């Protein structure tokens, strides 16, 4: 039961397009207190714990919401979550396959070893609204292609539910035009009212290619649906975990792009050096 996970995790690390910014200190503090963490590390893979994780709030029995951490693989769409309470640590692996997410859960509650009795598996269907209506979508596979297609770029996600996110399209376009480099990808809320989105195309307010609907667990895991617009930077195949939300002017976007590119460059260099 454990061996395939370890293999998967190592494989995931090799293919990873994930780069999380911040949260490392918090993660270390979390790990230092997590019960049975050494056993969990030994049972899975030390490599796994060299990944950078980003914070989440996760439900689990007895505690409505507790801090946890997650790691998602950009290429496969698979993800891992780690959370703990006073008595146990839980590792969740989730895999996206078509429209189904399978979740594998290892819980150390019964002992500090990962027995098969501590393992539960389940799956549920996730049907993307756009897919069900034959609309164009932007999924993790598209994301992976995008990350490979240019050295850096910005993903901007808007929603017809949020007027300022429509207004902001021209601001991000202007900022990117002024940069002269980098690829701008504009996407729409994965659960948006499709008619409202297409109406805006007909009115010439947004372009036809700007209404691909987000169907990417990678972007959802980064909280893309919490507010629109949400913007993300990627560089050298790495997608930042930090979303930039809310309406901004072209000038503010321009400063943000410079700052995020710089931060990504530093993080990538540190990663290369194995720090």
């Amino acid at each position: 039961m454990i061996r395939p996970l370890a293999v998967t995790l190592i494989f995931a690390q090799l293919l990873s397009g994930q780069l999380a910014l911040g949260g490392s200190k918090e993660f270390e503090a979390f790990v230092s207190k997590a019960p049975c963490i050494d056993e969990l590390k030994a049972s899975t893979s030390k490599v796994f714990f060299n990944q950078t994780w980003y914070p989440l709030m996760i439900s689990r029995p007895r505690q409505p919401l507790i801090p946890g951490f997650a790691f998602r693989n950009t290429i496969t769409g698979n993800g891992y979550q780690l959370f703990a309470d006073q008595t146990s640590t839980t590792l969740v692996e989730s895999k996206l396959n078509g429209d189904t997410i399978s979740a594998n859960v290892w819980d150390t509650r019964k002992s500090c070893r990962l027995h098969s009795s501590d393992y539960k598996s389940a799956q549920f269907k996730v049907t993307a609204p756009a897919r069900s209506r034959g609309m164009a979508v932007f999924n993790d596979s598209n994301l992976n292609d995008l990350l490979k297609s240019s050295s850096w770029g910005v993903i901007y996600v808007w929603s017809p539910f949020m007027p300022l996110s429509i207004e902001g399209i021209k601001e991000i376009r202007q900022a990117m035009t002024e940069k002269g480099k980098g690829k701008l990808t504009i996407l729409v809320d994965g659960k948006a009212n499709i008619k409202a989105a297409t109406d805006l195309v007909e009115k010439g307010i947004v372009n036809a290619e700007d209404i691909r609907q987000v169907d990417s667990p990678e972007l959802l895991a980064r909280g893309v649906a919490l507010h629109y617009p949400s913007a993300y930077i990627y560089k050298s195949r790495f997608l930042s975990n930090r979303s930039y939300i809310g309406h901004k002017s072209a000038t503010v976007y321009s400063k943000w792009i410079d700052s995020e590119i710089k931060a990504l460059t530093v993080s990538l260099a540190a990663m290369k050096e194995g720090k």
Partner: protein
Amino acid sequence: MIMSKSINAIKCNCLRKTLTVAMSVGALAVAMTQTAQANVDCSEKAASNAEAHLMPGAGYWMQSVDINHITYTSVGGISSYLFNLETEKLEPITRGMDAFPIPPGDIYVHPTGGGGYSFYKMGDGETAKPIFNDTDHFGVYQAVGLLPATKGPKDRVVRVSAGWGAGIFQDYHITTLEDGTYDFKRLHSHPVQVCRNLDTGGLDTQIPVLSRNGELIAGRDTNDQMTKIYKITNIHQVDAATDTEVADCEEVQTIPTETSKISFSFDNKKVMFVIADPITGKGRLLEMDIETAKLTTLSMPSEDVMYMTYRADSSLRNDDRLLYSRRTDAVGVESELILIKPNSVAKDDDELARPLEALGHLWGRACGMDLDTDAARAAGSRVNQNQCDELLNAANFASLPAEYSDLQKDQIQTLCKLSERAQKN
């Protein structure tokens, strides 16, 4: 078309229907197909005293005006609407975006196209002229707080914050005159720059929100992406020549994750917000006690919550009810407004937490759902007296999970009575 339905009126709408319910069980998600028990309302809105309204184009932004009205910004353009919960009709209002009501709801403020803010009288209709323009206050994402210096509804000191640049606010002394007109006085020469003492050099530009009393301000930290709540302190001048003022901020609480915009309760003790379910990406509605950081899940497991606001009564106290919008179907053709009164008795009393969970589990089992603890609490807090009786009948009670086998039926029955009483009060 506007539709409204009382939850009690749609009770049993799923009787003996085969339900397919996809839900999140903590980090684990399960799909199940089961048959509901007779006389148990399995709708996601299974809440006592809950109301559901289909509002045309309601989306992510709404504010409580008074007990019967909310403003919201519609889909697909820059248009504000005023929705009457009692008549279930739209009422005329100027169409600029994000109409933010100023308590007690007789006036409101829009960002002005091209910069500045304009104030309008509620009820003056779509073509109303502003009663006051402030061209020096700029930006978007405005929020309104009624400062403690307010003497009454006709003598108000109002703070209006905006989220452009690094965060600013302006204070206004608004007096209602004998003839029903309004006198506005700005209390600062220019907008005050807020939180300049923070390492980031100011309040983050992302989705700032002011508390109802104008003394707290919250926003998402650009660096760690967490939403932080600050107390505004020490407003002072930093440049006499330009009369530039700044305000310091003291961190009061951190919500340790990415959140949506938050909504402050009218007593300024709690906040509500939406987080993304780690696996499904669905919006989950949470409430946090600002002082204790205690979290409560308010939405049902299968709901996809978009936006939320507390509701005030006519005296600007908490009405104890809250409103949230959620997607009505997977394609978001319409969103639905839900009005609920969570069970405050059980939420604040740990002794009653387990009976509440047990009740939620009974509801879940009757409806073919295996809920996790927080989902069970949320469901339990929304079960009314009739539902409670049904769930506690012998056939249903036998399905109580083993970990609650120490609970007696009358312990849960007591909870239902307490809940019913609290909701009536």
